[in-house]
């Protein structure tokens, strides 16, 4: 499909456009967090604890008197950064293994497939929990844990797609011309399976952000006073009856961010690879 036609269809795809707007909004917020946030995200002032939303504190304050609005604004940086890094790591691992398994087949394929199935066999959240606990709670370890438990879906799909095209005439021709395996994989196969990879990547982002905030909610993500959305939310549970805003607003931010990526992913799938099953 030509770029121009794709562009035209993208403009017509409502889901994709709404997602794109949400995504741009989040990016702008994350980049300009310093100028948007009215207060510091970590400065405490007990005299202003648990205040309801007002013009000074649009989302209210928490038990330490910190501005929830500012914390949510700064928290977008954590969510976005972790999401992007996680997806970068898991897609590189997953795509590389998928290409290798699909291209070479045989024993290598069977070994990779077994590891994939094994990773697939356990509930990812439980595995991630176990891994972060072992490594110690920190953002870096959250990235590692989520990447370790979620690369497998890339491998599965990339493997099947690679198998499907590796015997096509143009690949055979490249082989006949003496191209190295590495060149064939990176220059001939990869560009031809880019659509599903792009769709998978955009759909992996929202789930990575959800997992990150879940681990944050359980206290395993960025450590206080860092404004991790999941953590802010879980701290709010203790005050849910008197200060529900602490939990409500970070939750809305998570939903909007994840929704934005989901809509982009769904839209891209419709545009690029409508029959791809994720």
């Amino acid at each position, binding site marked *: 499909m030509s770029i121009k036609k794709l562009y035209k269809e993208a403009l017509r795809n409502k889901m994709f456009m709404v997602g794109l707007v949400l995504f741009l909004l989040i990016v702008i917020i994350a980049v300009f967090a310093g100028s948007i946030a009215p207060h510091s995200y970590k400065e405490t002032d007990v005299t202003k604890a648990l205040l309801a939303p007002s013009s000074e504190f649009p989302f209210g304050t928490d038990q330490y008197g910190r501005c929830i609005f500012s914390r949510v604004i700064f928290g977008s940086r954590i969510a976005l950064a972790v999401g992007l890094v996680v997806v970068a790591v898991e897609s590189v691992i997953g795509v590389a293994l998928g290409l290798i398994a699909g291209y070479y087949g045989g024993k290598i394929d069977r070994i990779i497939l077994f590891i994939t199935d094994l990773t697939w066999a356990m509930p990812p959240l439980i595995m991630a*929990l176990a891994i972060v606990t072992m490594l110690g709670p920190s953002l870096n370890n959250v990235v590692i844990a989520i990447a370790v438990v979620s690369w497998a879906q890339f491998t599965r799909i990339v493997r099947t797609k690679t198998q499907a095209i590796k015997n096509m005439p143009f690949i055979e021709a490249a082989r006949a011309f003496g191209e190295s395996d590495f060149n064939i994989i990176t220059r001939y196969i990869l560009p031809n399976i880019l659509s599903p990879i792009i769709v998978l990547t955009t759909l992996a982002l929202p789930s990575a952000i959800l997992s990150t905030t879940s681990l944050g909610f359980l206290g395993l993500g960025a450590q206080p006073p860092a404004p991790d959305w999941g953590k802010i939310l879980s701290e709010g549970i203790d005050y849910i009856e008197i200060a529900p805003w602490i939990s409500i607003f970070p939750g809305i931010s998570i939903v909007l961010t994840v929704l934005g990526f989901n809509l982009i992913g769904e839209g891209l799938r419709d545009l690029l690879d409508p029959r791809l099953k994720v």
Partner: protein
Amino acid sequence: MSDMIEYTIKRLFTGIFVIFAVTALLFAIMQLMPGDAIQLIANPRVSPERIEELREAWGLNKPAYVQYFYWLSHVLKGDLGTSISTGQQVSVLIKARFPYTMLLTGLSLILQYIIAVPLGLITASNKNTRADGIMVVLTIILWSMPPFWLGILLMLVFGIWLKVLPISGYSGLSSLILPLMTMTLPSLASVFRLARSEVLEVLREKYVLTAYAKGLNRKRVLTFHVLRNALIPVTVMFFLSLPWLIGGSVIVESVFAWPGMGGLLWKAISNQDYPVVQGIIFIIAILTVISNILGDILSAFLDPRIRLEIKGDNL
């Protein structure tokens, strides 16, 4: 039929292998952890000699693979070890919690499917109507909701503002409603999406046209031909999603202080209580493998093409 029995036995063997592999993997990861449980629970004033003694007692000074086989041999006797933080038998702890988790996840699973599958069939067979569009958007929104936040919202609305439902712990069936909703809604969305896309796929099949050409009415075609075929992947998903739901129960149970395995696991992880963590993950691994096998067998039962493959498969 004998093919099916043979297949089942084969699947059981690979399943057992997977259980070993998963537990060994987990064991290996645990060994990577800096420090151990004894250091964690021991008071700084406890003498190093005493700590060594404790390690000896727990078998923690042995090499990892020895510890693994030690653990495994006990597991085979039904002994999952003793909790380091409470001193109770792990099997006893799990036994007390297991029914609560199964009640929650089991009910949730059933609820998801009896709602989502008919809904998927109806919306897919009325594609491009307004109701279908609304459902699709609604599911993406539900999908985008972190379950813990959904739980908090439900808690706020039904527990605190309307005061109609209890928000934490277990005090009878009414306590079940909010955790059940929290667990069911997001998964309901994915089951719905799967059911809908499968039905759409089947609707494109030629045999649906044949069924109409035969003179069958729409209701018969949809239930007998379309639903029956769409159910094959949906059934597999039903079984595959059980372990995922149990995974999600960690969050739901901690939000609502539900007395199940997920909450126990969470507490054990925070206390670095190895035997309990291992025990629970072992149970979950077994559940996962069993549900995978059930899913495979059932799909072979539902799909004669898979049965044929099994017959031809001489692995």
